[in-house]
């Protein structure tokens, strides 16, 4: 990998690593006994490891002159490996916390292993670790292929990828040692948030410069989604995380948003993390890998435009549906509900566009589990966006809110849509990236597919049942007009579903492990003697462009 960098680029990499290590040292020095000091040491170790790698390869042969005539795939390969590693970690944490709900003593007598600290390691591990790395890797791949241009930087892709993973490590380790802002999907503290802004701005500039190099007149629809993902996540992240640290030497900070305004900002962020991280980015994947795998063009250009702008505009209004019947003013709740219902139109336009693209390729869906992953993802996308609009309706929400139904809804989207589209995309991408004819084992892709589907269905059905039962028990009255059930009665009714949910999650985790093995064996297998077709950008017209 270091062979792709010139010696001056290697020196720059070393300088950046040293700079990051110095920041880590400063954090350790001012943090001292505070947990900030622990994170300072972690930053130093991370930067030190990168520095060691760069220095040990400092005198390797330099890349050839014609580097610009090929795509830059090394960071994508590493991104895929990191993504799968985070998947196993994050899903294992998910199974563990799910099991703790059924068997609360499945913890050690120490803070780090209790439910409240493990839960954000699960959500961050799967959303940002697994999902985020997959998004970075596939966006680097898609933007190069659809622009017919090499990434507009040699170091910056590595800075984005490794810097992002450093953020994830700081976040996840922080929760275990008790560092959290408690903001849903934005728990990491101020210093990690500032670091992510630096990484993210680099990502945005890299992406924009690569698009500017394109040899195609039009920007392909997948890139619209990746751009919306990068841009809007930056806006959301900065606004939601505005906070005042109690001092430069402490990890703890207080958000600038108080009470009801904080509630609105948190759910404006929270729901749009779903929209622009877990939807827009993954729609970018769908719009490239599904047509590639199906060997069919996207069904409708107009539907693509409609759904893209619909999602970009409508989603940002929907967050307040998380706050129905609360102390948030009624008018904001109503706006959130209205836009949530309207969101069904662009959402189904996307899902329909994906499924109609498969017309003429349904025999491939039958025979090819990789394409079936993406088909199932589009179906679950349709189901969970319908469910989302439905749950956002105020009277429905009065039953579903605070119950497991919400958790089931999130997982219908996260397992059924986000994870399935990712696996389908990775199984398409891995053989082409490593220049293999196909995945090591088509049978194992098939096994993974059925484990994932079974796991998702068991999980979602368990949570639908528990959520609806819970909601009904809370509001059931006796004939005398008294509440029929105590809270504990409703909890006791949940146990069978908590066990079923943990089992469904376990199946999903096993599927991911099978996927890791398959990807590993594919990478280890012998490469093709000659590439099937020339996977290179158009050579620059003018040398030195």
């Amino acid at each position, binding site marked *: 990998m270091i062979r792709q960098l010139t010696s001056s680029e290697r020196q720059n990499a070393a300088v950046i690593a040293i700079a990051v290590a110095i920041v880590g040292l400063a954090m350790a020095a001012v943090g001292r006994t505070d947990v900030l000091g622990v994170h300072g040491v972690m930053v130093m170790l991370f930067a030190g490891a990168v520095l060691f790698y760069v220095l040990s390869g400092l005198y390797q042969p330099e890349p050839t002159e014609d580097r610009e005539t090929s795509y830059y795939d090394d960071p994508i390969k590493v991104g895929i490996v990191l993504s799968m590693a985070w998947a196993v970690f994050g899903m294992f944490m998910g199974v563990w916390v799910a099991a703790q*709900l059924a068997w609360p003593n499945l913890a050690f007598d120490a803070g780090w292993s209790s439910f409240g600290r493990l839960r954000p390691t699960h959500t961050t591990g799967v959303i940002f670790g697994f999902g985020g790395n997959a998004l970075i890797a596939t966006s680097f791949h898609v933007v190069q292929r659809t622009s017919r241009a090499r990434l507009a930087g040699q170091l910056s892709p590595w800075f984005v990828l490794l810097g992002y993973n450093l953020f994830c490590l700081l976040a996840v380790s922080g929760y275990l040692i008790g560092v959290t802002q408690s903001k849903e999907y934005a728990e990491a503290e101020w210093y990690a948030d500032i670091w992510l802004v630096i990484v993210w701005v680099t990502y945005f500039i890299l992406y924009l410069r690569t698009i500017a190099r394109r040899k195609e007149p039009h920007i392909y629809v997948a890139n619209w989604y990746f751009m919306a993902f990068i841009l809007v996540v930056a806006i959301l992240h900065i606004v939601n995380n505005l906070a005042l640290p109690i001092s430069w030497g*402490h990890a703890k900070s207080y958000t*600038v*948003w108080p009470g009801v305004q904080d509630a609105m900002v948190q759910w404006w962020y929270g729901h749009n993390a779903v929209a622009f991280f877990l939807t827009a980015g993954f729609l970018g994947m769908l719009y490239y890998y599904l047509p590639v795998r199906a060997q069919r063009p996207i069904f409708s250009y*107009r539907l693509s435009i409609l759904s893209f702008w619909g999602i970009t505009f409508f*989603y940002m209004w929907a967050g307040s549906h998380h706050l129905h019947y609360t102390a948030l*003013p009624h008018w904001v709740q109503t706006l959130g509900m209205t836009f949530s219902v309207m969101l069904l139109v662009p959402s189904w336009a996307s899902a329909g566009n994906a499924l109609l693209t498969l017309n003429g390729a349904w025999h491939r869906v039958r025979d090819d589990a990789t394409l079936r992953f993406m088909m199932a993802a589009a179906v679950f996308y349709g189901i969970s966006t319908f469910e989302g609009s439905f749950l956002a309706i105020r009277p429905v929400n009065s039953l579903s809110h*605070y119950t497991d139904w919400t958790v089931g809804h999130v997982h219908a989207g996260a397992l059924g849509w986000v994870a399935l589209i990712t696996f389908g995309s990775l199984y398409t991408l891995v053989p082409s990236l490593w220049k293999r004819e196909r995945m090591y084992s088509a049978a194992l892709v098939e096994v993974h597919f059925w484990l994932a589907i079974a796991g998702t269905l068991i999980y979602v059905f368990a949570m639908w049942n528990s959520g609806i039962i819970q909601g009904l028990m809370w509001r059931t009255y006796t004939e005398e007009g008294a509440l029929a059930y105590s809270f504990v009665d409703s909890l006791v009714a949940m146990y069978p579903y908590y066990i079923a949910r943990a089992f469904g999650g376990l199946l999903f985790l096993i599927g991911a492990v099978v996927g890791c093995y398959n990807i590993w064996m594919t990478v280890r297998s012998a490469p093709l003697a000659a590439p099937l077709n020339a996977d290179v950008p158009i050579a620059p017209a003018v040398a030195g462009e």
Partner: protein
Amino acid sequence: MPEIFHRKLERSAIGLVIAIIAAASVGGIVEIAPLFTIDETVEEAPDMRMYTPLELAGRNIYVREGCYACHSQMIRTLRDEVERYGPYSLAVESKYDRPMLWGSKRTGPDLARVGGKYSDFWHVAHLTNPRDVVPESNMPAYRWLARTSLKMEDLPLHLAAQKALGVPYTDEMVENAARDAYGQATPDTDFAAGVATRYGDETQVSAFDGVKTDVTEMDALVAYLQILGRLTGAAYENTAAPEGKPNPEG
């Protein structure tokens, strides 16, 4: 026509960037900005007090341990919720909450009005091992809280940061934050008297975890749980409350 326009737009990266920012900004601005300008958003509550340093420390432990993942602090305007938990929550009750802890999942019950509902002793037993007092419970045990001394020397920094953000702590409160935290958990000491002077006579001063010699994280967390829903009586005055405000001594 719109299609022709879009064919032009998608040839320009900067054009797309600007269009995305414009489309995505509207919703947030329309929904968030007025929450700061419309006066009725947060009710008036002249009797509202701030968290004492010990309660604030307890709140930070509540945040650290992720209690909000299973317990809401937001009673909705629904009959069954009001009858189960008490008067529905008002915006003013979380006026000083940074972050807010309204929550979105009830694996356990709502805690918005749990203050005063159970004794300190019950809370300590429950946090030490929930199944000792509620056999069906699936809540984690928090035994280490009683073993861990509370870090109090940083508390002036905490109050100063809150003050800078607009919580009306006085300089005296900031200065005495560590002493007040110690005093609130050690009745009969000189420090205890200062807490009542600065935060009001109704402030509960108690050896929350039953041990008077050491201030632990258990003290702080129980102090916080006991103040939940009791910073102001506004919810009992302005709403159809089925019960009176609980007695602070209860």
